[in-house]
């Protein structure tokens, strides 16, 4: 079934906004409500909207391929484990927050108590947020695409034939 003009235009307008909102949730995970899992799920809903507005083949050709989504997901998990392992190498233990208060990237000292929030704080938590975010995005998108590929999309002629058959059987009654 081919989605109409209104659905396609709405999808084209909304999908980038949903992606940016999900990215905002991921990057501000240590300051505001949200985090990697939630932001990744929001981005995956953008992929779902794209699948609804356009058909599967168009999505595969123009948007993103399942192979690349698998790559993104694996990269997220590998980044997660490597960031955790770096704590073992550079500091004392596995999952040690080695970037916190180091003065480097994400290493600004945080003011204790209520503060306005600085995005370059919290050590390796933003890195892990990003890793988990792209992993959840890739994983949920692969699940959606796999379930969608198990369904066959009917063509316009088949839809019309079905409608004609329906009208005929109704008349026979």
């Amino acid at each position, binding site marked *: *079934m081919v989605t109409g003009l209104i659905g396609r235009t709405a999808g084209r307008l909304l999908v980038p906004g949903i992606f940016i909102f999900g990215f905002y949730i991921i990057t501000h*995970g*240590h*300051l*505001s*409500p949200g*985090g*990697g899992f939630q932001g990744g799920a929001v981005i995956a809903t953008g992929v779902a909207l794209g699948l609804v507005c356009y058909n599967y083949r168009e999505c595969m050709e123009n948007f993103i391929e*399942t192979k690349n989504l*698998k790559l993104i*997901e*694996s990269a*997220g*998990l590998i980044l*997660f*484990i490597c960031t*955790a392992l770096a704590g073992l190498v550079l500091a004392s233990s596995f*999952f040690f*927050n080695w970037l*916190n*208060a180091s003065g480097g990237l994400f290493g600004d*000292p*945080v003011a*204790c*108590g209520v*503060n306005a*929030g600085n995005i370059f*704080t*919290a*050590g390796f*938590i933003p890195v*892990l*947020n990003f890793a*988990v975010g792209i*992993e*959840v995005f*890739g*994983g949920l998108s*692969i*699940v959606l695409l*796999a*379930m969608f*590929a*198990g*369904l*066959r*999309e*009917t063509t316009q002629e*088949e*839809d019309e034939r*079905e409608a004609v058959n329906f009208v005929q059987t109704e008349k026979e009654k």
Partner: protein
Amino acid sequence: MLAVRGERHSPNRGSVAPLNAGDMQQAHYPLPQKLGVISLIIVVTLILMLPAFSLSFGHPAASATDQYYISHSQANTGSNNVVTAIVFDFRGFDTLGEATVLFVTVLGVAMLFRRIH
């Protein structure tokens, strides 16, 4: 309009005898067993009502762990969001297992659908 690809009914379905009323009667629970299941569900629900009378909503028991997380999360991890600090720093191994479970699930889904194509 979406339709499931391929044969709606499997080939071996034609060889099975058509379903008649007696089979349907036998296929479902007999009545005493069904009553037993329903009473079991009611008993389980009533047992689960116990927390509703023993706990008090809004006044949880004091928890040293939660107090430690709230008062030390900014100094130890630098994160303003205490929940994120717990998920990614204090209980990082939990999150590692969680991410692995998600990865393995997606691997399983992709593998199961590869056989169809």
